[in-house]
């Protein structure tokens, strides 16, 4: 949906990957460029998080304060992002919108990850018929376009914070479930698990001491990569008028509200909320991508961002 980093297609044998490595270095996608990308992403993400955490307490201004004498002012020193059709400062509104988007995104990504990890781990650990049944379920779910299913859920449960979280969570657990299941299956065949079992370890001990730590990095990575997806999905729902209520305008809601001004020719109320969706998406994707390369340098990951 959002940023997808094509992972190397064939690096199973070290022979190709060694050469690909040389090519990558020649192509400027080597370590130096990667380090730069990680640093830029980290700075951007830190800026976003700080803005979201610090602006509301430091500037106790009412972001909803209507000032009709100053409506639709273009960007200036006083209002860096301009003002909207009700004279509200857009920078402030964007920061508050980002706060809502990030919060909903985090909670929704958490829901999706917990659900996906539970299903994937259960399928991988139980195996047999239960595994087949659960994976069929995943297949059925992935045949329905995410946003459409999300729209359906919100339509049936009425727009609001929890339906939106539910809608993101119920549509985004599939990839996590697949990843975790694959990871559990691969771990189960490792000698150290056999050793633990023959050493008399109980099922619970094997699961908690050996399987969970092995699966955890992948699950956490999936969760992190899920956040931009969740933000994206929520903003799309909000843009369609099916998301959060107007007094909790997220970035998608702000874009939707700006449509009228845009048709009158004022671009700033539309431009800035969109930029605020793009920046955290790229920052998280940049960091998570580098992390993925570290923990998973060779295998082609199923993760799609």
């Amino acid at each position, binding site marked *: *949906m*959002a*940023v*997808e*980093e*094509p992972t*190397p*297609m*064939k690096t199973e*044998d070290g*022979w*190709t990957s060694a*050469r*690909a490595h040389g*090519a990558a270095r*020649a*192509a*400027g*996608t080597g370590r130096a460029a990667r380090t730069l990308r990680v640093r830029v992403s980290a700075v951007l993400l830190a800026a976003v998080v700080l803005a979201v955490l610090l602006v509301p307490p430091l500037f106790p201004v009412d972001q909803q304060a209507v000032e009709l004498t100053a409506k639709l002012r273009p960007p200036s020193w006083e209002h860096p992002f301009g003002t909207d059709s009700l004279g509200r400062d857009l920078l402030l509104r964007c920061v508050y919108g980002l706060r809502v988007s990030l919060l909903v995104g985090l909670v929704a990504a958490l829901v999706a990850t917990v659900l996906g990890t539970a299903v994937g781990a259960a399928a991988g650990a139980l195996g047999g018929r239960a595994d087949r049944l659960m994976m069929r379920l995943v*297949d*059925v779910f*992935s*045949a*329905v*376009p*995410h*946003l*459409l*299913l999300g*729209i*359906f*859920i*919100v*339509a*049936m*449960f*009425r727009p609001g914070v929890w339906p939106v979280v539910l809608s993101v969570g119920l549509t985004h657990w599939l990839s996590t479930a697949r990843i975790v299941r694959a990871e559990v299956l691969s771990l189960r065949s490792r000698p150290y698990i056999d050793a633990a079992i023959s050493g008399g370890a109980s099922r619970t001990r094997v699961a908690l001491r050996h399987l969970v730590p092995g699966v955890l990095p992948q699950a956490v990575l999936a969760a992190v990569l899920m956040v*931009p997806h969740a933000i994206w999905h929520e*903003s*799309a729902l909000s*843009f*369609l*008028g*099916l998301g959060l209520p107007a007094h909790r305008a997220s970035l*998608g809601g702000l*874009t939707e509200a*700006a449509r009228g001004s*845009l*048709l009158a*020719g004022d*671009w700033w109320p*539309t*431009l800035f*909320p*969109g930029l605020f*969706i*793009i920046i955290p*998406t*790229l920052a998280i*994707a940049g960091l998570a991508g580098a992390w993925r390369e570290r923990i998973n340098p060779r295998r082609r990951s199923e993760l799609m961002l």
Partner: protein
Amino acid sequence: MTAPDTGAVAPKTPTPPETAPEHLPELEHPPGPAPGAERRKAMARLTGRRLLAAVPVLAAVTFGVFALAAASPFDPVAQYAGTAGRSASQETLDELRANLGADGSFVERWWHWLTHAVTGDLGHSTSMRQPVAEVIGERIGWSALLCAVAFAVAVLLGTGLGVAAARRRGGLLDRCVTGLSYLLQAAPPFWTGLLAVWLFALQLGMFPAGGLSDTGSDAVTPGGLLNHLVLPAGVLALSQLPWFALYVRQGVGDALEEDPVRGARARGLRERTVLLGHALRSGLLPVLTLIGSRVPELITGALLIETVFSWPGIASATVEAATAADFPLLAALTVLATFAVLAGNLLADLLYGLADPRVAFEEM
């Protein structure tokens, strides 16, 4: 269903990977499993198998849709009766419930809906006040047109940009294409669409901002339609393009490092032939397997783009239906979209088999 990347590649060549990576020139590998007519039969069998497999999936999806609706606070009777429902007697409401087919458990309602849907009766849309089948019939052509044009543009342009970027990885063009692709992938299509409206429709006045025909006239003329199609199709294509560009760049770039390409260069073939005949051909294969997975993304994009540009297609009907909690229409549209996804997967597998004679259709 079809994870197109599982077991789709079935290289029959038992040669060790060191001497023969996946991309062998046509002449060197033994002929594919079944040439000519045999192969067409195999494709027909695959199509039949997939259609059969789609039946339980569609049934399961509708079941899930009915289960979700049953779990939600949504009540069709209250919605139908509106404010009059508050003053109506219980008997009237019960009667209404029976008339709407909303009595009984959701499993019964699901079965009722399913048996009727098979005969083509998809129920009555509450928000459009007309049969669901009619709503879909009126709109599906416009959506198909928009999606097909956008998808074709995205595939062609994305492949072109990907190849151009792969030619010299790390070059200026490559960095521009990759950077723009990441940016475009992170940008929500509705936002890109709105900015396109601002720039091309309002500032430059080149294209209309939305709809099918100019204001004041209802007639849809081919020329006018084309004019109205440019912006929505362009933005939808722009939202799908980065994926193709990045994957083709990766595939072709990798293929350029491989022995067949080195061999072709050593034989003194023209760079053009090497790039398009050797590298693109093998580099495109992995992309082709994943093309089916783009259908959901295309539908997602269409949902947003049609809303931005007031395009009278299925997707904008979905949004209207959702706003009005129009269950019959939403249920039918969900099934339709699921079907489109399954069809897309099948199409991708067939294309892949056509492009790579080593693929055995029996194993898909």
